[in-house]
């Protein structure tokens, strides 16, 4: 077990280095001169450009630049925004807190909806099963930003008095905060809930045919007990895995959904930075978001190995 964990952690560090190299090189690959992009204007005096080059270390070899950038990033210096001229880290952390809140809320909604519909489909079968599967099939084809746009449209057309856009900070008003995140989280959760529903349904159907469930039924346990102690327990593992795998999807989806609902999270930050060509911010967000996904995936792998010893092989 220790060996497996150490191996996974070493591999995680290697992947993170690869991720950081990609994030670094991409922003050096932008068309034109990075110093001009940093200056924010084409008509800059050559002396100013030279100073910028020296300050950003652009006159050094690429490898040295990467190591310097990486060293700074590791000590929490993610660079300075081209637009606000302030350190990226502070703003990014504020935004990240909002995105994490949104993602967690979406995960809870997705798990609740997915387990409920998946369970209903597997236990009731018949029309319920058919309807759930039809709904799942259709929802797979509706991207989260389309759902989000249609929700905003729907409220705009039929409930114009309800404010669906914008965000209230948690400390200001916890209830209003939850209300402002509910619809975006729902838009984000729908596609993920489909995966969880399909996995729950498949897992419950599989477990329901096992001998130990037959034995449980034969010895007279009530259907409710069998459901709780036998089916749910065994069906939960694939559900947890699916939810973990969807972290990347939720983070990616939040970019679009936050932009649509005007939620000041990391996604909206990225959207704004793309439009203002604020490359250090784009770079920092790519690094942090990809880092989170790699970290979560590693943790899931390790947790999974603890639950199921076969994974280690």
């Amino acid at each position: 077990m220790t060996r497996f964990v150490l191996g996974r952690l070493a591999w995680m560090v290697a992947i993170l280095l690869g991720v950081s190299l990609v994030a670094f090189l991409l922003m050096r690959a932008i068309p034109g001169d990075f110093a001009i992009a940093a200056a924010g204007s084409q008509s800059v005096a050559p002396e100013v450009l030279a100073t910028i080059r020296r300050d950003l270390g652009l006159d050094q070899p690429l490898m040295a630049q990467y190591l310097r950038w990486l060293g700074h990033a590791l000590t929490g210096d993610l660079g300075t925004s081209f637009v606000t001229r302030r350190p990226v880290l502070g703003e990014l952390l504020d935004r990240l807190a909002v995105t994490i809140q949104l993602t967690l809320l979406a995960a809870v909604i997705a798990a609740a909806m997915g387990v409920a519909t998946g369970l209903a489909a597997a236990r009731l079968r018949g029309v319920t099963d058919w309807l759930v599967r039809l709904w799942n099939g259709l929802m797979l084809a509706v991207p989260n930003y389309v759902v989000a746009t249609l929700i905003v449209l729907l409220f705009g057309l039929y409930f114009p008095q309800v404010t669906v856009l914008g965000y209230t900070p948690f400390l200001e008003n916890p209830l209003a905060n939850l209300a402002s995140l509910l619809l975006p989280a729902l838009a984000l959760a729908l596609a993920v809930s489909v995966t969880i529903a399909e996995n729950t349904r498949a897992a419950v159907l599989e477990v329901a045919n096992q001998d130990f469930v037959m034995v449980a039924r034969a010895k007279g346990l009530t259907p409710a007990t069998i459901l709780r102690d036998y089916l749910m327990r065994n069906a939960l593992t694939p559900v947890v895995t699916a939810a973990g795998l969807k972290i990347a999807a939720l983070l990616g989806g939040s970019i679009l959904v936050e932009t649509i609902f005007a939620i000041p999270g990391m996604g909206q930050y990225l959207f704004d930075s793309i439009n203002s060509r604020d490359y250090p911010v784009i770079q920092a967000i790519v690094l942090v978001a990809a880092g989170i996904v790699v970290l979560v995936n590693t943790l899931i792998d390790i947790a999974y190995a603890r639950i199921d010893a076969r994974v280690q092989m």
Partner: protein
Amino acid sequence: MQESGQAAAAAPGVRRRGGLGQGWPLLGLGLAMLALMLALTVFAPLVAPYDPSATSPDSLAPATAAHWLGTDSIGRDVLSRLIVGGRTTLLITVTAVLIAMVAGLILGLAAGYLGGRTDEIVMRLLDVVFAFPVLLLAIAVVAALGPTVPNLILTIAIVYTPAMARVVRAPVLSVKRWDHVEAARSVGMSEMRLVLRHILPIVVSPILVATSLTLSQTIFTVTALSFLGLGPPPPDPNWGGMLSEARQFMELAPLTVIGPAAAIVFATLTFIIIANGLREVLDVGSVR
């Protein structure tokens, strides 16, 4: 999100039943939808009733006999823009996925068949790309290189190659140890012929299913990029861009949003249906 198309594939052990029908009828329906979409987009200039970039004073008009889906905020015909925009969106999607398929096929065959050091190096490099969330990597690359059609195609192709390579590698690893392959090798068949005659046919089914699933996910990625302002430059229409532009006035002309939304869903659904149909017909297990 980007992996959503794989959800149906993730159900382990249970034969999928009901829901959206099965096998040949499903595949037929999907192919018919694809044919309709391709016909509309290939002959777009002939089919579109108006010039998609021509503006008119009649802006944000509701659906009329003249404009079936109304007009947008500067008076352009929504239906014409949808049809012509489908051209750009599908061109990027299909080209990129075909490139990813060929690249994944070559890398997966090389890694699986040659094994050892080659396998290790190829798969580890692909793992780094695979570690990125698809949309995030695509955004980073396109933001850095600039949103042109070739850049978009290249980016999407890179992003989806690792998944394709994995789909190919797994069956190759087991097939190369089968008796008929050993037999062919022992009678002196050349390596190249061996791969083409005995290994390649085994991967055809899984890669066909994976390709159609990837197509459905790519529709999402391409339109999402355009939605974020990282799509092909204006004034040429594309579905993601249309949806994004229309949001400002959508309460005044809902069709400007519902049109592109329906087109995106239709295209995604088409490829998911084809993938599920292929899976049943070719009897492929879960593709990951």
